[in-house]
């Protein structure tokens, strides 16, 4: 074992892992994060806590992770390289680990252009791959990026994202391989709606044997309505929503569209369970966390293993 991470234990045991996501509030309101955490508590092995997602200011991932930890959940500290340089990132990693947070997700982050502070500079002292390298060096060599020794080095289980749907497609397996070489332990993918394309990517992954070097959790996000599906397709960078999905949701009456969205999710999970190299699911119900338990339950992913 590389860490004490529960997520690592579940994955090593060979069972399908389940992670979910929780966005911190736009204010100093611990109740909001606690309510979301309560919903996910017994359903996910670990819960991502986003870091100024979509470049909008929110309670820090680190602070929100501490609330989750205190409630007995296993938070995954998300960290984007957009807002902090290598000093700030390393000090947060030390702080998080000192609070018992042992799992992270390394990202470059959305551009400030998309958020509520478009005038801010984006730091990008490191990119996501260099962040992975840094966290691995901290863990395995007990050294800061600058080379000095760390007292009680943080043993993080290291995650990153992969988007099989972004361009150029032919590069996306090679990019995963780069993240593996940098030292990533697990991957959470972009939300999957175009299953054929995902399977094509996974074929490229398994052909190179990369699924034996990294755990891949398939990203799942339920659609609330045809409007949301259209928005995701047209407005969210790197999202691939096939027209059939939009049509399927649009074809049922408005009131039933949410149910149809959940149904699609569950079918997707069932199909992906059969795909070689899929080690689990990352279920992100953005501001719709109350639906996560039923998705996990109906997809046959309960009970969660005790490790």
């Amino acid at each position: 074992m590389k860490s004490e991470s529960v997520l690592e234990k579940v994955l090593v045991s060979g069972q399908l892992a389940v992670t979910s996501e929780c966005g911190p509030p736009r204010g100093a309101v611990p109740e909001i994060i606690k309510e979301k955490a309560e919903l996910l508590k017994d359903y996910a092995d670990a819960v991502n806590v986003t870091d100024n997602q979509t470049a909008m200011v929110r309670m820090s991932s680190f602070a929100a992770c501490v609330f989750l930890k205190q409630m007995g959940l296993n938070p995954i500290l998300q960290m984007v390289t957009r807002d902090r340089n290598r000093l700030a990132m390393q000090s947060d990693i030390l702080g998080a680990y000192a609070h018992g947070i042992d799992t992270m997700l390394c990202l470059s982050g959305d551009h400030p252009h998309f958020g509520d502070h478009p005038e801010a500079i984006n730091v990008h002292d490191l990119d996501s791959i260099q962040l992975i390298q840094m966290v691995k060096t901290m863990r395995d060599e007990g050294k800061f990026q600058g080379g000095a020794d760390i007292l009680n080095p943080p043993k993080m289980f290291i995650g990153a994202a992969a988007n099989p749907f972004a361009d150029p497609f032919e590069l996306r397996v090679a990019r995963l391989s780069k993240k593996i070489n940098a030292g990533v332990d697990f991957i959470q993918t972009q939300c999957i709606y175009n299953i054929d394309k995902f399977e094509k990517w996974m074929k490229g992954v398994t052909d190179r044997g990369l699924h034996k070097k990294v755990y891949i959790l398939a990203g799942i996000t339920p659609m609330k309505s045809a409007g949301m599906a259209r928005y995701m397709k047209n407005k969210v960078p790197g999202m691939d929503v096939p027209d059939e999905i939009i049509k399927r949701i649009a074809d049922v009456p408005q009131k039933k569209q949410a149910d149809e969205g959940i149904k699609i999710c569950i079918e997707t999970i069932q199909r992906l369970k059969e795909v070689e190299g899929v080690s689990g699911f990352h279920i992100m119900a953005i501001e719709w966390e109350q639906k996560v338990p039923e998705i996990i339950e109906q997809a046959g992913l309960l009970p969660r293993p005790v490790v």
Partner: protein
Amino acid sequence: MITAERKPMEELTEYVKNHDRILLVGCNECVTVCAAGGRKEVALLASALQMDAMQKGKTLDITEITLERQCDPEYIEELTPHIDQVDAVMSMACGCGVQEIARRFKNTPVFPAVNTKFMGASERQGVWAERCQGCGSCLLGLTGGICPIARCAKRLLNGPCGGSSNGKCEINPDLDCAWQLIWDRLKALGMEKQYEEIIPAKNWVSGRGGGPRKIIREDLAE
């Protein structure tokens, strides 16, 4: 070259509102090429400023001069005979030129007439685009001759991010994704393997990270 764009008229008239005699100084280098501050632009701005002054019922005396290079003290000296006849200087050069004038003439205010933009190249007539951020340790040899620091919106050294779509950057559909360009070029050169080499964390000391920079060539320095 260094590119620039002229500032809006209101900002320029505000600068000179309390001055009667100004020296308007162009530069014959980069800003001439990008049509922001050469001889022609000096003449145009001089008449625009005079027109504005006239409308406001005041007189503005403008001496026009365009130097070979404003970033070179040797040429700045050519301003010496004029400087006592004016009460302010307006420079149409890049920020380097403005600062050279300020350094040489301690008692005369100098105002910038352009916004200095970036180091770039001309893509076609009338279009310039950023190409280099002067990081001080060039890695174009690793990236197929396309700079991710200057041309990727997130300056990812190991891109592309998950937002690259149809060759365009996620922040603007009119902007090429630098990493698509890099990949296409590596492919064309048969250097796909190069892509899988991780470019490690950059040492920014050679760039702005190390504070203001200076080059000292012992063989040339006096």
